[in-house]
């Protein structure tokens, strides 16, 4: 960040102090450790790295992790948008409470969430027993992974879409209606495009968070290699086997994936704001 050097005569004081503290803290807590970690990865030979991250079992875990995260984020995209819509647009009893509860997955420890979810969705659980009748098994299958990831990603989409929806001027919808458009057309052509940046952000955040989630998933997924084993669990497994290099290599892949994800969102947002002002 070359521009950080304070230019002459900033009128509002405190730039040096706040920027200094921001960079110091960010550096100490985040940049230096992550940098060191990436540097550590570069000490691996390319072959070690490549073998570690392309091991069949690891590839299978990518498929599960990325696939489930995508599905969970997509579920959250649809239902999160729906929940946000319902919370913003409609009135119904208990709305305040429901609105407040949306933050729960942020606040509840993930391990507790995992235990609670498996209690619910195991085939002996509160909900699982009824699903079992239809031959649907949730816990210990990919479905279980998706359930857990959906749970932890839920607030992201709701909380990014909600404020945008609240600010969305009724005039656009009214303009659309006055031009003869039906409700569905208005939704598709006016409301959704306006929500798109927020939806994308929420989607990407939910996805990135789901990709890295560990605590809640290990309880409800079967952890079967090749089938229900998520990538973060593999990282843990590698570390437990004193294989830090393997763990770091896979960790780097996850890190880069998450960074790319954020880069893409920020890029998209920059692009849309450029285009549409």
């Amino acid at each position, binding site marked *: 960040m070359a521009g950080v050097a304070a230019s002459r005569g900033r009128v509002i004081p405190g730039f040096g102090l706040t920027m200094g503290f921001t960079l110091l803290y960010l550096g100490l807590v985040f940049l230096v450790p992550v940098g060191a970690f990436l540097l550590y990865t570069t000490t691996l030979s390319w072959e070690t790295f490549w073998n570690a991250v392309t091991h069949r079992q690891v590839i299978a875990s990518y498929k599960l992790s990325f696939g489930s995260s995508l599905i969970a984020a997509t579920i959250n995209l649809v239902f999160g948008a729906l929940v946000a819509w319902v919370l913003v647009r409609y009135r119904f009893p208990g709305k305040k409470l429901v609105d407040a509860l949306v933050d729960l997955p942020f606040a509840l420890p993930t391990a507790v969430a995992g235990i609670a979810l498996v209690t619910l969705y195991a085939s002996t659980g509160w909900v699982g027993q009824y699903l079992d009748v239809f031959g649907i098994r949730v816990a210990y299958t990919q479905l279980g992974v998706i359930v857990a990831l959906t749970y932890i990603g839920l607030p992201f989409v709701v909380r990014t879409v909600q404020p945008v929806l609240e600010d969305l001027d009724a005039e*656009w919808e009214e303009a659309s209606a006055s*031009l003869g458009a039906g409700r569905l057309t208005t939704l598709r052509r006016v409301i959704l495009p306006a929500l798109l940046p927020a939806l994308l952000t929420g989607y990407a955040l939910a996805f990135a968070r789901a990709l890295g989630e560990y605590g809640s998933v290990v309880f409800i997924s079967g952890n079967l290699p090749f089938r229900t084993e998520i990538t973060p669990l593999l990282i843990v497994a590698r570390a437990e086997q004193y294989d830090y290099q393997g763990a770091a290599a896979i960790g780097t892949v996850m890190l880069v994936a998450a960074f790319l994800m954020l880069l893409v969102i920020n890029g998209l947002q920059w692009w849309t704001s450029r285009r549409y002002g």
Partner: protein
Amino acid sequence: MSIEIDHVNKHFRDFIAVDNVSLTFREGELTALLGPSGSGKTTLLRIIAGLEQPDTGRIRFHGEDTTELHVSQRGVGFVFQHYALFKHMTVFQNVAYGLTVRPRRTRPGKAEIRDKVMRLLELVQLDWTAHRYPHQLSGGQRQRIALARALAVEPKVLLLDEPFGALDAKVRAELRRWLRRLHDEIHVTSVFVTHDQEEALEVSDRVVVMNKGKVEQDGSPEEVYDNPANPFVYQFLGNVNRFRAGIHAGEARIGDIRLPAPEFHDRRNESGLAYVRPHEIEVYAEAVASDTLPARIELISVVGPTVRLELRTDAADDLVHAELPKHRFHALGLTQGNDAWIRPVQSRVFLPDSQVSNG
């Protein structure tokens, strides 16, 4: 298409926004809805469009009751104060929107839509912006695109909510003349909301003055300006001075000045208020006649070709504003602090019970 508003009422919670309004907008006319902030202009316009539902009363388009009709079925073109252009669509897509959302069987072909949109963009002189996005346009240009978009669906009625409210004084003045010319060309029944009396008077065929949800007066711009129905309208249409006046046998007396007030020919020795516009006050450097009022110049400001004076006189409670052409004022040779004599040459008298509210 004429619009008939028949005893329409609308309240929000315990606030009455539109209070038993009946009006008819005649086919092809451009009507201004004029009134102070909060007087219910927007609400009335939105009721006509079908964006709000009246509590009671009916709306008829060309005699046909449309009160229950959904906005998308009414065939009105609505131009919003802040344009409400679709940000993620180009200018072309914005204007084409109303056509492309039609059900397939009534939707014109691609080429037809293209032609029509481009012709509309030419009409508003903005065909060169077709591929831009709204944020790349100036306020005035956006306003015209909003108009083109509303016109694309060939509305029977065009409704404009403070169409120039968000624009600079200069652009505003240009656009309102442009609107007048456009209307003369296309002659669709139009209603526009404004709180700027100059705009209403300059642009419209007819002015409806509203206050507190009620219609105060309804007539041609000249009628409304020259014969305001009540002090509210009088005051709302421009700067005004109030003199204490005696009313006697069709005459108003301000000091020794007698002004005709024929509508009060049967009143004797009552007291009222005479309303006089600044340019209806003559200013003298000396007491040229017996019937002038002595005054003192408190402030002189020269605004281009005109000079505005503020004078203090015993006959009025507030400062009196007078306006005269610069050359006339210079001929008088007066400066700030001088004594001067003034004489209202025309006035409109109201009895105290029809006082001007603080609108």
